[in-house]
């Protein structure tokens, strides 16, 4: 498979992933996590 086909596949996959993630509400989960102190992330949890 040529490089251009791989590039197209990855672009489509990336777009599909972002769309799927947005539509099932992942952005809200990420925002909730990112807008507070993540105690585990900083080694305090």
């Amino acid at each position: 498979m040529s490089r251009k086909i791989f590039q197209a596949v990855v672009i489509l996959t990336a777009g599909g992933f972002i769309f799927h993630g947005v539509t099932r509400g992942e952005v809200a989960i990420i925002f909730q996590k990112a807008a507070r102190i993540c105690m585990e992330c900083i080694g305090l949890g």
Partner: protein
Amino acid sequence: MKIFRRRLIQLAAFGFTNAQVLNLASGKIYKGELKNFCAPGLNCYSCPAASFSCPIGAMQAVAATSGFNFGFYAAGIILAFGILFGRAVCGFLCPFGFFQELLHKIPTPKKILWRPLMYAKYFVLAVFVLILPLTLTNYAGVGLPAFCQYICPAGTLEGSLPLLATRPELRQVVGSLFAWKFFILVVVIFGSVIFYRFFCRVLCPLGAIYGLLNRISFYRLTVDENLCINCGRCKKICGMNVDPVRQNDSAECIRCGECAAACPKKAIAINFSTSLEKRDDCLE
């Protein structure tokens, strides 16, 4: 000139990703709309200065949530940046990569990294980012953000230290986990002083993903074999220990451009151009 330009871009990316610097004094976490988006590089979203979410943290946060299993949104953003820029994200946009480069400027004897260590980051990606957040759950069924919790030194540097300095109530929960993470941070700092971009090459799961995409990314390194005189200067100057002539698609190449600047014949190009590709296609 190109190297100076890269420094400026790194500085701008560092500032843009951590634009909420005033929050450092109070230890408040930015809660604005920008946190809905993931930055392309490693930057802890628990840092008071952070404007964006960390893509690895975001992936784990979703994977650890009951009923979700995999963070498609963050993975899509990583793939999009990866296919466009490959590991140029590490070389130009990652704040933690920039931090390591500054550390490496401290004048001490420098060493070359043992090559097999570079494969550790693929293990970290598979086990700590993808598998453990899914499989290890607590009493409430919430998964474990294993990379953030046990490995990520950016979280300790950008999250815990400023927060512990400004919020005394957090100091009461400092325990063995913090001690472990602080130890990792110290190892990474000393490692980065001695080895160029120690964390990027050994432990970073983002570097692993972008490295895999280096082979097919639009932004790429090409060598004109008609101009190359095999002098070896490019290989000698490369901090990532890549030989651009033989491994122009190497997963370790961060597209920093040091090799292109060192080439006496200007045989190395790093850009979105496909002129050499087109020429090769014509020859085929």
